[in-house]
């Protein structure tokens, strides 16, 4: 049996003496689409940060492709692309093309390869026309596309997305979901954190519910959703809402 693409084992993490994650176990296989569900403060964002090496566990470990993330965060950052909840806050350059090139430049790739990856990444999120625009003048939906392109240009094997639909209208959400579905069909695993799973019904296979820092449920999305409101997650049959 092959190793999972991502493995979190007994991950425990606290902040200011307060536990945020307690003994979290999670495995994600290549090509899976997993929803990480939970209410506010359930530890979703913190767990995503562990996948990319932005935070280290106090106890336990996280491995990406069999390599310990704490020991070699560079490896994890090549394989795991992280998109923050506030996409605008993760834009590091003033011009769209420069921002998308930032990741490949950090990998030390040759100029031609960087250019190819930037072109492909912008194309894949339908943002080629934004190439020369100032990142400061983009709308919320455009910022999210550029942030995603910046991560895709690093050719990750797993996308860790923090509330990827928050703040987007119906059309914007559909566009992002279709992009995610296409990327997932191309073999990229996706872990999307949200408290409102309704919009993901057509795309996600599996859901993991975090509650009070631990894994409360882990299974097929349709099965997990039954009674999920007790964990602070928006129930699927409720009208309105559905922001994230």
């Amino acid at each position, binding site marked *: 049996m092959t190793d999972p693409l991502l493995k979190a084992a007994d991950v425990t993490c606290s902040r200011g003496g307060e536990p945020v994650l307690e003994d979290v176990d999670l495995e994600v296989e290549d090509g899976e689409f997993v929803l990480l569900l939970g209410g506010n403060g359930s530890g979703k964002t913190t767990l995503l*940060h562990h996948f990319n090496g932005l935070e280290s566990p106090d106890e336990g470990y996280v491995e990406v492709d069999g390599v310990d993330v704490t020991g070699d965060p*560079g490896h994890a950052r090549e394989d795991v692309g992280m998109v923050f909840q506030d996409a605008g806050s*993760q834009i590091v*350059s003033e011009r769209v093309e*420069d921002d998308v090139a930032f990741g490949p430049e*950090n990998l*030390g790739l040759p100029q031609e390869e960087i*250019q190819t990856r930037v072109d492909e990444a912008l194309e894949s999120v339908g943002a080629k026309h934004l190439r020369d625009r100032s990142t400061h003048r983009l709308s919320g939906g455009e910022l999210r596309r550029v942030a995603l392109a910046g991560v895709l240009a690093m050719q990750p094997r797993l996308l860790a997305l923090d509330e990827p639909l928050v703040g987007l209208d119906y059309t914007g959400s559909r566009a992002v979901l279709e992009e995610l579905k296409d990327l997932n069909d191309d073999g990229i695993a996706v872990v999307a954190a949200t408290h409102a799973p309704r919009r993901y019904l057509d795309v996600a296979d599996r859901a993991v519910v975090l509650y009070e820092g631990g894994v409360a449920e882990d299974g097929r999305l349709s099965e997990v959703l039954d009674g999920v409101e007790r964990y602070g997650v928006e129930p699927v049959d409720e009208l309105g809402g559905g922001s994230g």
Partner: protein
Amino acid sequence: MTYIALEEVDVRAKFLALVLLSVTLYMASAASVAGLAFVIAGVYLLSGIRLRELAGEMKLVLVIVAAGVVGRVATEPTFHGLFEGVVAGGRFVVIVALAYLVATTSSSGEMEAAVESLFHRLPFVRESDWAAMFGAAVRFLPVVSDEAREVKRAHDSRLGDRRRFDHRLKTLAYPMLVGSLRRADTLALAMASRAYSPDRSRLLRLQWRRRDSLTVSVAAGAAAALALL
């Protein structure tokens, strides 16, 4: 036309020209400063930038200059004091206008690459870190300005703060500082999440051409003329 020609010039040449002219301006006579100001105003007019737009961008600079002139007159309340204050302010405005011209005719990526290239020649300096800091600053400045605007709007939406000026300043400065620090922290996380490394390669490679040497030569000639006239 002038604007497009300036866009084609290597940023390093523009940086060097800016430094040469800025340093010499502090030795230049009032007439030379006025002459250079007219030349720059001409370049702006030819480039299609409206002077009102420029004045809007330079509002803060003009406030600083006005405060400087008032301060100078306060220490020497004569016509000479006023004249010296205006000339010093004029020098400052001309330098900022030159820097604005460089900034608007160059992309942030080009400027980052130029910083890296120029610092590459200095010993004990990790040029890629300086370039990344420069790039982050260019990205961060509008973010801070947005933060300030949002805090101001939040105040206004609650009918503003009608207390004393120092109270108003405090209630604006604190949330702005906290917001800016939070954004800086997120920016650092964002850079780390995309595997930031000082040993990075570059999409953009600057190429020094004959017109760049010509630009620096013209700037050196203008600087010499400013110093001598």
